């Protein structure tokens, strides 16, 4: 490639009919009540998902085989407005503390009982650098994990 490669952050924004405090509480303390079970990164199916409510706290999942998987750590903990956490998941969708992109979630009160939730998932470049060798290798082989999953979705 002869061009500098910068990957735009993933940005999401949605309005939730809930107070700011409630939205924050559901997102963090009650993560397990809504986080899709199919979104796990461990070796076996996810049993429960948790966020430890403090700076430095873990986002982790427990699994049916009794194991735990760390998804990331809280870098900013500002209830009920904002959290920022590392996302320690490699490009082939495996837990990997040596790579960390970053996710910020903002909870913005828009009125009584209405909250705008904004998400930004960024720093994909860090992931590319840290996992560079591994990723280049797997690109040749067709990106076994992630691309296969994606292809199935894209072709469904």
């Amino acid at each position, binding site marked *: *490639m002869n061009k500098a490669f910068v990957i735009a952050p*993933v940005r999401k924004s949605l309005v939730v009919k809930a107070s700011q405090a409630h939205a924050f509480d*559901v*997102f963090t303390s009650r993560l397990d009540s809504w986080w899709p079970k199919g979104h796990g990164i461990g070796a076996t199916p996810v049993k429960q998902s948790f966020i430890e409510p403090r700076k430095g706290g873990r986002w982790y999942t427990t699994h049916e085989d009794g194991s735990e998987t760390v998804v990331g750590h809280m870098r900013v903990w500002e209830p009920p407005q904002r959290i920022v956490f590392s996302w320690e998941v490699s490009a082939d969708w495996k837990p990997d503390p040596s790579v960390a992109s970053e996710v910020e979630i903002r909870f913005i009160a828009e009125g*009584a009982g209405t909250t705008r939730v904004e*998400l930004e998932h960024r720093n994909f470049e860090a992931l590319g650098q840290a996992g560079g060798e591994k990723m280049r290798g797997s690109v040749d082989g*067709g990106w076994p994990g*992630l691309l296969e999953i994606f292809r199935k979705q894209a072709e469904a």
Partner: protein
Amino acid sequence: MEALRAGPRAVGEIARGMPVSRPAVSQHLKVLKEAGLVTDRAEGTRRVYYLDPKGLAALRAWLDRFWDQALVAFQEEAEKTPDKDKRK
């Protein structure tokens, strides 16, 4: 995508080896391009497609969909559970 593993190819070349029409191949390439899995460039008068070697664009596209699904689930849960701070 399999057809592109050997290197860049034009739509017509890809379609020749497939049991589907050329427009169907074009459509499929469009989806793959939007997903960041393949990319294209002009080569003389034709346009060739090749696998995006960076692949990170694919990861980004996948995460984009991933967060959509997660946030929809979050929204449903936040709106259906009792909200003690909600003022009428």
